[in-house]
């Protein structure tokens, strides 16, 4: 329980720190971006909820079934960090190329975190999903090999939705 509480506090603190960092650096519409990203991740989590098991969190961390806003917030932090890194390092790269770099960076960040969450017991796969997995793991992790392509698949949808909704707000 203690470890999970630390994880929860870390997820919140990390996102708040990112928000403060972006505010202090003069980024526009920071709160709006975080809210849109939170909503984007939540949409996907809602759709795929029966496939996952997020267990052991504090009661206040759950929104619906086993969807927790802590995990959602964690994803928000990961996505936003990825955008910051890629947009800074590849500032002149066209959007259509940067998209693929986002996916690579996300994969590199997500796999070790997912591995840590599985080992800690807070993250699990429901039988409906586990039954479709090959049983092979990504080397040095406990993450199913299928994550190699599953992570880019679902992050693609979230990145595009987030960016498009931001675009709609900018053009309203």
């Amino acid at each position, binding site marked *: 329980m203690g470890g999970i509480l630390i994880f929860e506090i870390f997820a919140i603190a990390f996102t708040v720190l990112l928000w403060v960092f*972006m505010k202090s*650096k*003069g*980024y*526009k519409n920071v709160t709006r*971006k975080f809210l849109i990203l939170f909503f*984007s991740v939540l*949409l*996907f989590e*809602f*759709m*795929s909820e*029966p*496939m996952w098991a997020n267990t052991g969190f504090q009661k206040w961390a759950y929104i619906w079934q086993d969807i927790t806003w802590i995990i959602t917030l964690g994803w928000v932090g990961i996505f*936003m960090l990825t*955008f*910051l890194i*890629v*947009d*800074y390092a590849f*500032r002149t790269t*066209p*959007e*259509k190329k*940067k*998209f693929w770099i*986002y996916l690579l960076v996300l994969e590199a960040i997500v796999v070790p975190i997912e591995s840590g969450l599985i080992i800690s017991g807070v993250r699990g796969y*429901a*039988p*409906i*999903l586990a*039954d*479709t997995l090959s049983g092979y793991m990504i080397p040095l992790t406990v993450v199913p090999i299928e994550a190699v392509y*599953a992570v880019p*698949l*679902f992050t*693609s*949808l*979230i*990145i*595009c*939705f*987030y*960016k*498009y*909704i*931001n*675009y*709609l*707000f*900018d*053009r*309203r």
Partner: protein
Amino acid sequence: MQWEFEVGVILLTLLILAVLRKSNDKIYRRFGLAVLAVLLFEYFTHPLWINANLQPWAYIYLDVSWIITLCWVDLILVSMAIGEHMLPKAKEWKKFIFTMVLITISGLYLEWLFLRLGIREYPEVIQEYLAASFRIGNVVPIVELLYIPTFMALIIGFVKYWELALGSGSKNKKLVGGKEK
């Protein structure tokens, strides 16, 4: 199930593309993006659904079917075209909302059709999940009212993002991530 459904879907798709090509010279690009987005989604969530009773050639991987993909893509293309046709000068967000409403309504009918034809089934776990759920027309679980717009919002977002990113104008500079100051 005979092959008429599959052939009907293919012919309908060809007809929709032929009609929409007149008003959108980039319709094949939109079609390709929509196919890719729906396939991504269907592949990722395939443990949640069973697409049954289609011809063997209609399946790509496990029970992911490109015929079902085409059904959703047709619905997306037509809804987007109607939105653009009926609200030509409206702001983009109004078109988006309008398209989402159209897709939700027509998507419920499509899901109803799948269930009625026996093409769509739910795994046992999902059936238990939906057991207490009210069913629209005694067939479609009420939660589809949430699932369809949720899933379609992600798909439309994907299509529109890539249309903007691949566009030659200045619009692609408006796609913001964490960077824009």
